[in-house]
């Protein structure tokens, strides 16, 4: 035992094969040891993670984290748009609401039909990007005016279907398209008119 370092002894517990022949007390299967070592691993992880991410943890406790994540996702989406689809611009909530109140823009919901049915911006038209790409929607019939001002949206910064719908429409000859980056969740959180399960709110 004397030649075995303490750290080796610790590492070798629950590793019966590595036990010395002189140290005949062969470690048998022991839940206690295994769980103790699990706690060690998790404990070190908590220590390292806690020290390195304490600001993130504090934001989580204060409830600010979700707002930060939404902001980050929106920024990422805008960056992605700038790189991939340079011609497409975003519109913020307040400007979008102004256009909405003046009835100057048509809102297009790029999410799936069930999502649209459960809740959407009041007066918005459902135009699921997948159905459009598959050719299930006759665009000339639903949107005859190519110069109309269109605002696309989806579920906020975490989704890019609103952006992709805008790109698809601009490729098909529509000229006035804006993307509402905050999407439906942002619109709802701002207290603007929505339609939930067929009822205006």
């Amino acid at each position, binding site marked *: 035992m004397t030649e075995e370092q303490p750290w080796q002894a610790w590492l070798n517990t*629950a590793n019966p094969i*590595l036990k010395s*022949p002189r140290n005949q007390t062969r470690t048998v299967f022991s839940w206690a040891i295994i769980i103790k070592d699990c706690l060690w*691993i998790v404990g070190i992880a908590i220590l390292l993670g806690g020290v*390195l991410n304490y600001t993130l943890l504090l934001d989580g406790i*204060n409830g600010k984290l979700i707002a930060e994540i939404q902001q980050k996702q929106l920024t990422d989406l805008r960056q992605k748009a700038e790189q991939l689809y340079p011609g497409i611009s975003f519109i913020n909530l307040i400007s979008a609401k102004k256009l909405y109140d003046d009835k100057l823009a048509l809102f297009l919901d790029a999410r799936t039909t069930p999502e649209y049915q459960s809740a959407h911006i009041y007066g918005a038209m459902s135009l699921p990007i997948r159905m459009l790409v598959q050719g299930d929607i006759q665009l000339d019939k639903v949107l005859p005016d190519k110069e109309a001002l269109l605002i696309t949206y989806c579920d906020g910064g975490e989704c890019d279907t609103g952006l992709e719908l805008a790109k698809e429409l601009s490729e098909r000859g529509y000229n006035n398209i804006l993307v509402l980056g905050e999407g439906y969740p942002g619109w709802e959180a701002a207290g603007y008119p929505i339609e939930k399960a067929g009822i205006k709110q």
Partner: protein
Amino acid sequence: MKLLQNEYLHLAVRLLLGGLFLYAGLPKIMDTMGFASSIYNYKLFSSFVIGLTAAFIPWVEVLAGLALVLGVKVRSAALIISLLFVVFISLAAISAIRGLDIDCGCFSGVERKANWMAMLEDIALLGCSFFIFYFDRGRISPMALINKISSPSKTEDVS
């Protein structure tokens, strides 16, 4: 059943699983906010839970993965990884049932949706993890090698 006792198979599975967890965990440590954002997309957790998970889980993944690769505390690491897989499988199943079209956030930079396919893959990996837990004793590993070099008399097999 002899194959299950094969030490080289143990080593291969352990390196695969350990490497996978290092590969999954390290980028999350580098980009905690990105990982937090992936957790948020599941739409299941509060701000508090997202903060805790984003701060700690990547480190648990990395340490458990490292333990498997090095052959240290193999069974404990395999147990932790099994528990993580149970969580991942549940999350993939819940997202698939709810019809969410989201990235699973498993590996940053790799597109992998949280759906039935991801769930089946995770179940297979959970099998690997159980396999290590039951059969692998870290006989061939860097740690065993260090032990061998530092104290040659101890290399005799006692089993």
